[in-house]
């Protein structure tokens, strides 16, 4: 349990269907940190959001004792450095560099490829799917036979890959695609099951039926 501090105030401004926002929920739960959560409506941004993230006006934003931090990967490192129990980043500089590299690759290359495939129209579909499968293959080669990307315990990369572990299954169902399957990517698939069944992660992920309904509604608007 993280040390209690009566003066300490932790707030999270987020959006429950957002994997980026969810990363912070997972990290805070892994650390056992209590926090106040505010659900943001991005069509009607709160004064707090505009005050705490004037540069991007996006979620998630963590506010710790009145000090705001934006950008999920920046927030994750801050959380790991501030609450030192249940570390999700190694102290070894090389392991840290690798974790940062894979988190960045997930955000810059892998997530966009899969997201695009799930929302692609007929014209761009074939190419988008090809890129998504290539992206998943990169992960398949990286996870190898490890239980988690972080080794025996959940690490930074696992948290960053929450989209792969949980969101992809729902989005590909809606899109009628088979991207992440046990046949195509047995290792990533196995990892996804370890991830979503982890006792703390399980409690932190949004309910599947609600997430499915949310994205179905988004799909029908397109």
């Amino acid at each position, binding site marked *: 349990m993280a040390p209690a501090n009566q003066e300490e105030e932790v707030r999270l401004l987020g959006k429950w269907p957002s994997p980026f926002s969810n990363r912070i929920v997972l990290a805070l739960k892994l650390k056992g940190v209590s926090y106040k959560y505010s659900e943001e409506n991005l069509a009607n941004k709160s004064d707090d959001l505009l005050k705490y993230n004037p540069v991007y006006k996006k979620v998630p934003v963590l506010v710790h004792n009145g000090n705001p931090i*934006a950008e999920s990967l*920046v927030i994750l490192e801050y959380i790991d450095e501030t609450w030192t129990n249940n570390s999700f980043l190694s102290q070894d500089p090389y392991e840290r*560099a690798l974790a*940062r*590299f894979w988190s960045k*690759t997930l955000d810059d*290359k892998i997530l966009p490829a899969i997201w695009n495939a799930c929302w692609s129209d007929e014209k761009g579909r074939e190419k988008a799917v090809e890129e998504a499968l290539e992206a998943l293959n990169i992960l398949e080669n990286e996870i190898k036979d490890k239980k988690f990307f972080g080794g025996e315990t959940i690490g930074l990369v696992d948290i960053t890959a929450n989209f792969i572990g949980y969101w992809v299954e729902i989005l590909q169902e809606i899109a009628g695609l088979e991207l992440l399957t046990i046949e195509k990517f047995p290792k990533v698939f196995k990892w996804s099951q370890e991830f979503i069944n982890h006792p703390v992660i399980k409690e932190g992920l949004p309910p599947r039926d609600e997430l499915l309904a949310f994205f179905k509604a988004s799909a029908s608007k397109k």
Partner: protein
Amino acid sequence: MATSDLKLLGGWFSPFACRVQIALSIKGLDYENIEENLNPKSDLLLQSNPTYKKIPVLIHGDKTICESAIIVQYIDEVWKNNATSSILPSNAYDKAIARFWVSYIDDKFFNSLRNGLFAQDDESKKKYFDELEEVLLKLEEVFNKLSEGKGFFGGEKIGFIDIALGCYLSWLKVKEKFTGTKMFDEAKNPGLVIWAETFSAHPSVKGILPETDKLVEFAIAMAQRLAAAAAAPPK
């Protein structure tokens, strides 16, 4: 600590490679500088950065580290030395702020500059350079806040944000040549004007940023290649 096992796969034209060189210089480290031509990409590059096939790559013994901002943090963490040569702040919140602005620079600043320099039409060029102006106004604010009058984004010494932004100074000079307007507007970015001079004159930076004339030639050739590729019939 033996430093003869350090190699940098870089390019003289690459602001990202410059970041690593500056970090290595701050720490007083010896290394082998391997110039990558990129045309074609060497086997060493393809093997050490299979995901992106890009420079810079730091090779430290049997370890390879990719992505310039990640490499700089690696260097800072391995060679902790003393407080006078540390690149990232020691406090977790200050570190987060530094990482946030480096991420902003890599996203907003880089894209506006790169897209503006190589835009094919005047309208796009203007759009991107207008964006760049907005970014610079923001960075001027950040500089004034973080430097506290001491000269660098890192305060008294060069820090993570200084390196992340300073590596682009030669490319900003290329923009000056291409557009005829100064890289930092004296009225809108007076802080950055002075910062650019202070940064360029720093002993750990001198000799690392490429010469403007050489870079202008390189940029013109690159622009021509991009224009030819854009005009080429689809395969």
